[in-house]
């Protein structure tokens, strides 16, 4: 069931907000012990909120498409009176005294929050194999990772625990779990969703967005999070298909599924245009320098507390302290150059289509994968198609486009111009609805 379908059922009195919330809590009871999507479940608060939403509907007060819809928040978003761990021992007892604006906006839109979702420690990693709160597991194969850092968000949506979950994305952390779990995940344009009240990882790369089951649901959620979107420009959408980089080192099943999605664009009447993209490897180099310096700046004052960190996150944070200021500034200068290059690319196309991730979800603890006879580190290859897009601040959507023979989901990434989020969503909706 989608948000739209649940909303229709609520308004026709086929189901109440309280019943919908109780069903979601039952699903969490059933699945969370094995999947570990939630760190904190707020069942009593959720049922109380749902009863209020029912009373409002009965009184004719309809808050809109998210009224009475069960959702959950990544445990990186501040929630008043509810523990916000950031997946870290540093914050294991942290209870904010206010809601993040995006949390408040979703509550004002009528959404019912069921709790806080697991993540990679401090959102600094892609496995969600959390040393402090346990591994989050992929619902399609519990031996596999769900991706990260918003792993709990992907799992909770994919397994039907909630209709929508918030996520954050600094180097792919919404799009990667969306791809690995088979959900929709949208990283909006930088700054579109208010970042205040969300524990930062990298100030100039952090984005907040929704994970949902359909693109339309992502659009509804984003409008609740950010306000109304400008309508997409009219006209035939020009879809760019990269001729370099994005299909060079990629699992054959992923390549095949994404190429099929690109052909579907043509079948739908959109223009499919082969394009040469700028140097993504160089873009990723700038991204690494920026995230490492900024994340270490955030946590420098806590680094002496070594036993409070997992080993992978501690290594990243300590390495980041070795990035000189000159390198950080030069990475930002490089960023400016790449933004100009992508601006030129987007003069010839409206949306770029790529794989979201070159592989399907690896097993928990799997450190390498084989592609075309090459052995590659899973951690590095997982972010290779998504990380650079954060440097540019462009809107980027991951949608499911198929399954591997092993039954694991495959995602395609759609990237658009700044603040043309609705155009990206329009293409996503068309692809999702096509046979």
């Amino acid at each position, binding site marked *: 069931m989608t948000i739209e379908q649940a909303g229709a059922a609520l308004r026709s009195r086929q189901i109440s907000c309280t019943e919908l919330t109780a069903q979601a809590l039952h699903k969490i009871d059933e699945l969370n012990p094995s999947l570990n999507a939630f760190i904190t479940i707020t069942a009593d608060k959720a049922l109380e909120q749902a009863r209020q939403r029912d009373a409002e509907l009965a009184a004719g007060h309809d808050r809109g498409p998210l009224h009475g819809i069960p959702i959950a928040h990544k445990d990186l978003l501040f929630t008043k009176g509810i523990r916000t761990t950031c997946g870290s021992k540093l914050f294991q007892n942290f209870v904010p005294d206010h809601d993040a604006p995006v949390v408040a906006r979703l509550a004002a839109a009528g959404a019912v929050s069921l709790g806080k979702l697991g993540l990679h420690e401090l959102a600094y990693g892609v496995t969600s194999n959390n040393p402090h709160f346990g591994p989050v597991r992929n619902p399609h194969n519990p031996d596999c990772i769900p991706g990260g850092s918003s792993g709990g968000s992907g799992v909770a949506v994919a397994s039907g625990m909630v209709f929508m979950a918030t996520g954050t994305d600094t180097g792919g952390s919404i799009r990667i779990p969306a791809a690995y779990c088979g959900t929709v995940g949208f990283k909006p344009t930088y*700054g579109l969703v208010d970042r205040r009240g969300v524990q930062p990882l990298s*100030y100039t790369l952090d984005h907040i967005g929704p994970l949902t089951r359909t693109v339309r649901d992502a659009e509804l959620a984003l409008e609740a999070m950010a306000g109304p979107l400008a309508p997409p420009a009219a006209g035939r959408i020009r879809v760019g298909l990269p001729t370099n980089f994005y299909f060079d080192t990629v699992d054959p099943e992923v390549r095949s599924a994404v190429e099929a999605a690109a052909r579907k664009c043509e079948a739908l009447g959109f223009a499919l245009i082969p394009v040469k993209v700028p140097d993504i490897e160089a873009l990723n180099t*700038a991204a690494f320098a920026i995230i490492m310096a900024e994340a270490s700046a955030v946590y420098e004052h806590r*680094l002496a507390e070594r036993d409070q960190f997992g080993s992978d996150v501690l290594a990243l944070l300590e390495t980041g302290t*070795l*990035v000189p200021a000159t*390198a950080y500034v030069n990475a930002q200068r490089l960023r*400016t150059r790449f933004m100009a290059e992508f601006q030129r690319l987007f003069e010839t196309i409206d949306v770029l289509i790529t794989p979201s991730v070159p592989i399907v979800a690896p097993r928990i603890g799997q450190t390498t994968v084989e592609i075309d006879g090459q052995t590659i580190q899973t951690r590095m290859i997982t972010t290779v198609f998504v990380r650079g897009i954060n440097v540019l601040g462009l809107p980027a959507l991951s949608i499911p486009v198929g399954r591997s023979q092993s039954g694991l989901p495959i995602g395609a990434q759609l990237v658009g111009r*700044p603040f043309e989020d609705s155009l990206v969503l329009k293409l996503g909706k068309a692809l999702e609805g096509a046979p």
Partner: protein
Amino acid sequence: MPPEQLAQLQPVINGLLERLRELTRDLPAATEPAFTFEPLPERPQS
């Protein structure tokens, strides 16, 4: 950071920094836009 930890991490970062130096060596400092902390587009005002 303990010295042995530093010795392990330094080679990792050196590769990144060398690549970054290669990439930025020819940036036209005199003509490029001024550096900003968040060099990203502003949301259009409606």
